[in-house]
């Protein structure tokens, strides 16, 4: 039984990630198209559903080219590292009550710790490419991702403090009588806003896409990557968004739990009828939609503005928010 598990889980996760990656690319293209008064992909398959499949095929069939003047080992290592991180990050994510690989007791810390590894893959990629654009992009991402780690961690800490646990299942259980965001505590709402900004920055998404910064650095850290290696970076970016949004759902939107309203038993029963994984994915894609919405609305920030936003606004704000939240706990405002 356990051996079967060890074979099944990798297959399921690989399949799930491939589908999620493709779907997210499709979703992004459709979202941006509708916001830009276009149709988006609509030729391959019904509503262009198979467009990303075709794109993936194209990327597989592309030449596996690497330039001459690179650090061969590091150059090839970087995309592997980039794609491994989301795979590792999926371990504590609970897709449903029982759909969880390992309910590790420091689940939240596990995710914050491993997600910060993604900067290393970007730095390696930028350095090994032996290209100026890549180098500048990588250094930018170094400053950017490590900075936003802080306020992200502090935002998570607020929820940890409220639910008094680092375990994913317990955090979800603490929201059985209402999602944290709906319970309406001010520190939670502030920390949710900070968290949304932070994951946008952590995933190098516009308006924080300085690592790629198409109009400045052509393609940033993956300028020299093509074919499948580029595809791995591309997939890793989307999977990171997925994982971090999933964490956001777990922390703020009650994980896989259905939407409940107090004192409305009928309504709650209907909500319970929808399976938990569907709830989970629905909420995750809602958050991802917001991140995409950011991307297709805002111009990019400049590097100094980006760092100023973190160090002068978000970090003090999240620290104060944490203290404020603790005071609320001490005064027993939090209904547990």
């Amino acid at each position, binding site marked *: 039984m356990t051996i079967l598990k060890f074979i099944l889980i990798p297959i399921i996760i690989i399949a799930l990630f491939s589908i999620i990656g493709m779907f997210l690319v499709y979703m992004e293209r459709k979202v*941006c198209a509708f916001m830009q*008064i276009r149709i988006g992909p609509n030729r391959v398959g019904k509503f262009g559903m198979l467009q990303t499949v075709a794109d993936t095929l194209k990327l597989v069939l592309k030449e596996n080219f690497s330039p001459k003047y690179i650090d061969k080992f590091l150059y090839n290592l970087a995309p592997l590292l980039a794609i491994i991180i989301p795979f590792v990050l999926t371990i504590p994510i609970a897709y449903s009550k029982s759909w969880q690989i390992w309910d590790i007791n420091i689940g939240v810390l596990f995710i914050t710790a491993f997600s910060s590894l993604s900067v290393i893959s970007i730095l390696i990629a930028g350095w090994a490419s032996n290209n100026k654009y890549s180098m500048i992009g990588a250094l930018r991402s170094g400053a950017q991702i490590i900075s936003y780690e802080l306020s992200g961690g502090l935002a998570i800490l607020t929820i940890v403090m409220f639910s008094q646990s680092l375990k994913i299942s317990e955090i979800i259980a603490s929201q059985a009588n209402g999602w944290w965001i709906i319970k309406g505590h001010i520190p939670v709402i502030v920390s949710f806003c900070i968290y949304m900004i932070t994951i946008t920055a952590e995933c190098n998404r516009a*308006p924080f896409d300085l690592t790629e910064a198409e*109009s400045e650095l052509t393609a940033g850290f993956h300028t020299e990557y093509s074919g499948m290696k580029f595809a791995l970076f591309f997939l890793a970016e989307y999977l990171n968004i997925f994982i971090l949004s999933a964490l956001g759902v777990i922390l703020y939107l009650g994980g896989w739990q259905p939407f409940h309203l107090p004192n409305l038993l009928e309504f709650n029963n209907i909500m319970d009828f929808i399976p938990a994984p569907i709830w989970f994915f629905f909420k995750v894609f809602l958050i991802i939609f917001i991140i995409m919405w950011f991307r297709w609305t805002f*111009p*990019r*920030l400049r*590097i100094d503005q980006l760092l100023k936003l973190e160090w002068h606004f978000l970090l003090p704000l999240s620290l104060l928010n944490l203290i404020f939240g603790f005071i609320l706990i001490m005064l027993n405002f939090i209904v547990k």
Partner: protein
Amino acid sequence: MYQTKDILLSPDQHQDGYTVINIGPQHPSTHGVLNLVVTLDGEIIKDVQPNLGFIHRSIEKMSESLSYRQFIYVTSRMDYLSSHINNHACCLCVEQGLEIEIPKRGQYIRMIMDELTRVSSHLLWWGAQSMDLGAFTPYFYAFRERDMITDIFEKNCGARLTMNYMVPGGVMWDVQSDFMDDIKKFIKQYQSRVHEYHDLVTYNFIFQKRMQHIGIISKEDAISFGCSGPVARGSNFRCDIRKSYPYELYSSLDFNESLETSGDCFSRYLVRIKEIDESIKIIEALMADFPEGDFQAKTKAVLKLPKGEFYQKVETARGEFGVYIVSDGGATPYRIKYRSPGLSNLSILNKISQGAKIGDLIAILGTLDLVIPDIDR
């Protein structure tokens, strides 16, 4: 590791910690094949040297072998975003030599087309500028409005971009009967949507922070570097040719020269936005008393300018465009010089981008509104 050639590098560029990086010619934000050799200290720009000539077609030399009717079409290929106005300048210059009176209707059509070109060029710039700063969506909104203008051009002039609609003596053919309605429709649609543009871009906090206090041109610099058009008017330098050296019927029109005082990227942005409104005002005034009559004066089959020199300047969407014709009395010009606004506006880039960051350079480059064929010619 691979070491590259050190050609084109001055000794101070070799200094430790300085990076020399090429922006362009294959770059998404140079809007063409412009090559900028940028010396960086970290992210701070120390020096920018433009490197031109990637699409130099020697239009001036080409024009020397074309007749006075033919050389006009080449000028649409220079600043392709204000091709009507370029053609207009050439026609005016030839007419100045031939001393032809242009019929009223011809003049009106020409001016309306000019202003429509200006609006369409500024709209395109507006979208491209937002795209340079990383916001992709406004580009499509701008193109939606711009497409209505290009449709008007297509209907009346026969082409969408390189028109060649103006000929010495007037315009090639008369406008279609629904010309007025189309323009009115465009103006109505534009005015109903412009507040969305402002909400999305102009008032956007990030956008303002990216544009303000960046690439400041003082009035003295603007004059000394020969800047013209919105670039110079953003620094409070009155240089609108339509006001200071009126051609056609601009002297009889009531419009404002849009000026801003601070001279940074945002003021150049505001000047262009204001200029769209002014152009629409001009178009509306022209349409109110659109005369009947001939659209083209009678000219000879072969035009020959008298011996001498002729200079004509007009205000394109980018600034002062001038045509200098030296004629030896033959059927083709002896020498033609096009004074392109882009080249002078580009020359200030090094001065204003020093000390800025890479992201700022892109913003500055965008607000200079360069069209590379116009610079290279």
